[in-house]
C-alpha cells in the first residue's frame, strides 16, 4: 500500500522567493489499485508522482510503502515518463534487458524474459532497432516493457501517452489495460485527459490549480474488463466524464 501523508513541495525560485507547488496532499492507494491523478497543468501532479518515486524529496510530509518511508528511488517503483527516457545507445532488446541485468538476472534468462515482454507490447521483429528508429508509440511501448521487466510492484506513469497522437494514444490505453488486467500492479497514473483517467482507473483524484490540493476523489465503478467500444456508449461512463470535466472547469477557489 502507498500511504501519502501530508506531502507538500516548495520550490525556491531564482530570485530567492519560494513557490508552493503542491499543497498538503494525503492519499492512500491500495495494492492492485489503478489511481489517476488529474489536474490542470502546473498543479504539481507530476511532482507528486516524482516524490512517490523518490526522485524528488518532499518539503514536508512522508510517503510510506507498506509502512516503510520512501528515502529514494527503488526497483519496487517503476517509472514511465512522457519523454520515454530510453537509453538511445541500446537497442530495443538492450533497453528492456537493462534493468534485469542490473538486478543480477543471468544473461540468458534476462534475454528470454525481455523477448517475452517485447512480444507483450507487440514489438516482435524490432529487437535490434535503436530508439531513434522508432515512432513515439513504439518508444513508449519499449519504455513500458523496460519498466515491467524488473518487476516493480508499483507503476508510476507520468502522462505516458501525452506526447502521442490521438489514435496511437487510444491504442496504447487499450494495451495498458490489457497488461494491467493480467497482473494487477498498483498504478499511479498522472494525466490531464479526463476520458483517459475514467477509462483506465479505479479511482480518479482531481487536484486544484496551483498549488495543487485534492479537490475531489471519484470512484470509477465501471465493470472490468473494460472495452472501449462498450464504454463509449455506456451512460455511466459518459456521466462520469461530464461530472469530472465540470469539476475541472470550476475556477480555483480562493484561499
Amino acid at each position, binding site marked *: 500500500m502507498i500511504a501519502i501523508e501530508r506531502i507538500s513541495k516548495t520550490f525556491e525560485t531564482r530570485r530567492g522567493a519560494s513557490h508552493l507547488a503542491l499543497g498538503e496532499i494525503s492519499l492512500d492507494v491500495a495494492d492492485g489499485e489503478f489511481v489517476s491523478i488529474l489536474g490542470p497543468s502546473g498543479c504539481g501532479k507530476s511532482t507528486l508522482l516524482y516524490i512517490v518515486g523518490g526522485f524528488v524529496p518532499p518539503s514536508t510530509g512522508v510517503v510510506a510503502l507498506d509502512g516503510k518511508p520512501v528515502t529514494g528511488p527503488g526497483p519496487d517503483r517503476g517509472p514511465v515518463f512522457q519523454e520515454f527516457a530510453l537509453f538511445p545507445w541500446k537497442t530495443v532488446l538492450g533497453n528492456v534487458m537493462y534493468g534485469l541485468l*542490473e538486478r543480477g538476472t543471468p544473461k540468458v534468462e534476462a534475454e528470454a524474459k525481455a523477448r517475452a515482454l517485447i512480444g507483450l507490447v507487440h514489438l516482435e521483429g524490432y529487437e535490434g532497432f535503436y530508439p531513434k528508429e522508432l515512432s513515439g508509440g513504439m518508444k513508449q511501448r519499449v519504455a513500458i516493457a523496460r519498466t515491467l521487466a524488473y518487476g516493480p510492484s508499483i507503476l508510476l506513469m507520468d502522462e505516458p501517452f501525452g506526447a502521442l497522437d490521438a489514435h496511437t494514444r487510444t491504442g496504447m490505453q487499450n494495451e495498458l489495460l490489457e497488461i494491467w488486467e493480467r497482473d494487477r500492479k498498483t498504478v499511479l497514473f498522472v494525466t490531464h485527459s479526463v476520458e483517459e483517467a475514467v477509462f483506465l482507473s479505479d479511482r480518479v483524484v482531481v487536484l486544484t490549480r496551483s498549488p495543487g490540493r485534492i479537490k475531489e476523489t471519484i470512484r470509477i465503478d465501471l465493470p472490468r474488463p473494460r472495452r472501449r467500444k462498450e464504454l463509449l456508449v455506456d451512460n455511466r461512463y459518459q456521466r462520469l466524464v461530464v461530472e469530472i470535466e465540470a469539476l475541472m472547469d470550476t475556477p480555483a477557489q480562493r484561499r
Partner: protein
Amino acid sequence: MRRWSAIPGLPPLLACAGLLVLWELAARGAHIDGLPPAHQALKQVPAILLDRESLFHIADSVRRMLIGFALALAFAIPVGLAMGRSGKVAAFFNPLLMVIYPVPKAALMPIIMLWLGVGDASKTLVIFLGVSLPLIYHSYQGARAVEEKMLWSASAMGMNGLQRMMRIVFPASLPEIFVGLRTGLVLALITMVTSEMIARQAGVGNILFNSLDMALYDRVYAMIVIIGILGFVLDVAFERIRAWFVAWADSQHQIAVGTS
C-alpha cells in the same frame, strides 16, 4: 542524367588537382625562391618518406601526439562529465578553464621548456593541454544535456551515482564527446608541429624548419603536404571509429518505421 558531383570521391580529388595546378602556374609565373613549382615539391614527398631518418622523425611526432591525446582523453572526459553533472565541480574548474582556453598553447611552450626541458615531456604536455580544453568543454556540454528522466530511470533500476556516471552519463554524452575529440585531434596535430618548431630537436616540425633554414624550399613544401596527408588519414580513421561507436545517434540511420 548523373551529375558529376554525385560520383563519390570525385569532387575532393578535383579540388586537390585544381589547387596543385594553381600552385604550379603561380610558381612558374612568379619565379620566387620560396615558392618552388608543385611538381618539384611533390617529388620530394617520396624522397622524405623513403628516408629512414625522416621516417623516424615522423613516427616520433605521431607517437608524442598519440600519447598527449591519450592522456587528455583520460583526464578531460571525467573532468568534463563531472562538471556537467555537478554545479560545484563546474564552479571550481570554470574560471581556470576560461583563463587557459584562449591562450595559444604554443605560447606556453617557452615556460614549459624551462620546467621540463626541450624533450618529450614538454611537447607532450603542450599537446595534452591543447586537446584537453575542447574535450573538457564538449564532455561538459554532453553531460549537461543528459535527460534527467533517463537518470531517474536508471536510479529506479538500482544504480548509484557513480554507476549512473559511467554507464548512463558517459554513453549518453558520447556523440558530443566525439565532437570534442575531433577538434582535439586537429589541435593535437597543430600543437605537435608548433611545439617542435619551438623546441627543435626531433620530429616533423624539426625537419620542416631545418629545411627552411637551409633554403630547401621544395622539402619545406613537401613536409607541409605530408602533414596535410597525415591529418587527412587521421581524420578518416577517426571518422570510422566515431561511426562505429555512435551509429545509434547518427541521423542517416534514421528509418522511422511503421505507424504507432
